[in-house]
């Protein structure tokens, strides 16, 4: 069973979102998503400064099984990307909610609208099983 931390927000596309004290949003893919993909061999991240609309493909995660787009869960500007993933994409597998984060976003809107809380995301995973 995959790990779904209580304090995070989620999307149906298996991304997680965490609001930082400075108001920025940190985004990654969930434990379930990394399990489905298998060990990652490559992560493509957006350019810092890029303006994203909700649902834009912002990153690509590639394993030996598949390459998948990661979508922007909310609109905003890319403030930073995780530099460690270039050399160690497998950090997404070993620590999806920590060292394996993908993108830090300056959200266009302060509301985290349209996201799922941990129990709703867990229900989504159970329904798919």
């Amino acid at each position, binding site marked *: 069973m995959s790990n779904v931390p209580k304090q995070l927000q989620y999307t149906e596309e298996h991304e997680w979102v965490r609001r930082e004290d400075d108001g920025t949003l940190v985004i990654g893919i969930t434990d379930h998503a990394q399990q*489905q993909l298998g060990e990652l061999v490559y992560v493509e991240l957006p350019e810092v400064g890029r303006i994203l609309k909700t649902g834009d493909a912002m990153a690509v995660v590639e394993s030996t099984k598949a390459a998948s787009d990661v979508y922007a869960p909310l609109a905003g500007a890319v403030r930073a990307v995780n530099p460690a993933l270039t050399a160690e994409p497998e950090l997404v597998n070993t620590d999806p909610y920590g060292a394996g984060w993908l993108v830090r976003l300056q959200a266009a809107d302060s509301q985290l609208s349209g996201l799922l809380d941990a129990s709703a995301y867990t229900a989504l995973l159970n329904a798919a*099983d």
Partner: protein
Amino acid sequence: MREPLIFDQGRPGRRAPSQAPAVAAGTDDLPAALLRRTPPPLPEVSELQVVRHFTRLSQLNFSIDTHFYPLGSCTMKYNPRAANKLAMLSGFLDRHPLEPEAHAQGFLECLFDLQDMLKAATGMSGVSLTPMAGAQGEFAGVAMIRAYHQARGDTARDQIIVPDAAHGTNPATATMCGCDVVEIPTGPDGDVDLAALRQVVGPRTAGIMLTNPSTLGVFERRIAEIAEVVHGAGGLLYYDGANLNAILGRTLPAAMGFDVVHINLHKTFSTPHGGGGPGAGIVAVNDRLEPFLPIPIVGRRDGAAGHEYRWLAEAERPRSIGRLSGFMGNAGILLRAYVYMRLLGAEGMRRVSGYATLNANYLMKRLAAAGFTPAFPQRRASHEFIISLKDVTRDTGVSAMDFAKALLDKGFHAPTTYFPMLVPECLLIEPTESEARQELDAFAQALIEIRDLAFKDAAEVKSAPRTMPVRRLDDVRAAKQLDLTWQSRADSPAVSPR
């Protein structure tokens, strides 16, 4: 058995001169500065060692000639020896691609007839044989769609719609052709979500790329409606011919409303493939796209002395999207497909699709009766079908990949695994028309035995394969640190003198 590298089998000074030229090529006229000072690091082995090495390597191979090969979406059918023999006739094999047309009439006639047979098999009005593989056929197809819109001054059409079950090459092709990809979901019954399609079509729609039957192993039942929606929005329909084997002689891409189709001749029309080629990804089109076909095409003129065949190129086809290869496709593959089609005839082609779908449905029912879970149990399979091992994985930890490896030990090539990604822990199984029921039963029995073992001793299944020359490969390392270069010890930087 592990076969050592041929470099590691030799002894210094050992020679096998029987293949060497009788008269050594002169090097006297080469500048001294360009001559190497040490001999090249070649294997130093005897003739018999060479024969044994390469014979043993060939025996390590899984191939359709040695094993049942149900690799879904790849159509690994029997390759008739007659096709190979005839394509290797000296008149074909020894021709020069630049020889005058008058000297190549037999070759050109075969290609002309092949163009006509492919028009009949697709219902289309034009064919170009020049794409050298499926991916190039896709590229040609979408390039023609773009050329069509641009020729009409309809320049805003830059989106290609692709269902989420599509082969990965479809979105890649659209991107290569400068289009944006718009993905639409699949419904629970395996058909395209029509409501989602209606929402995304519009003035930016260049076209849709569809495989029918789809990669989910089911026939897209509302294809006529899909065609109406896409054409109604001003877009065109591209048929990915990956699964043509299922409908050969039963229905036509043209009848479903498609404007362009690519066919992998190496799959449906049976030439040896896998391992990277060579292939043939011909394109067939209706009248709308005919002027844009890639060149050259083989034309026929009726003269006093009978038919005269010739290349049609830039002069005759000014609106063509251009050339895709130096000459015209992979001639040897085109000839094998030509012979295969002539051997079968129209009636034989109907039987191909009949037996391909019968075999797939028989095997699916047999596995379902044994407790395996088809992805779409309510649907009739096309020429291939999917089973999901999700339940077995949940209960035992043994995954689809473990099943695939264990099948190797039982003498079967594995089916396609983890594709399409929509179905968890899936095997995509395509038995083709070539297999007898006995072989299908043996394959089903092997899957049953592997599942039984998974419940008894999961670790045993997870340790497969045990009888292959290599065990589990480190596919992550292979993807991240791919190293295909052999270096001699003398050249290796690690031991070279500093």
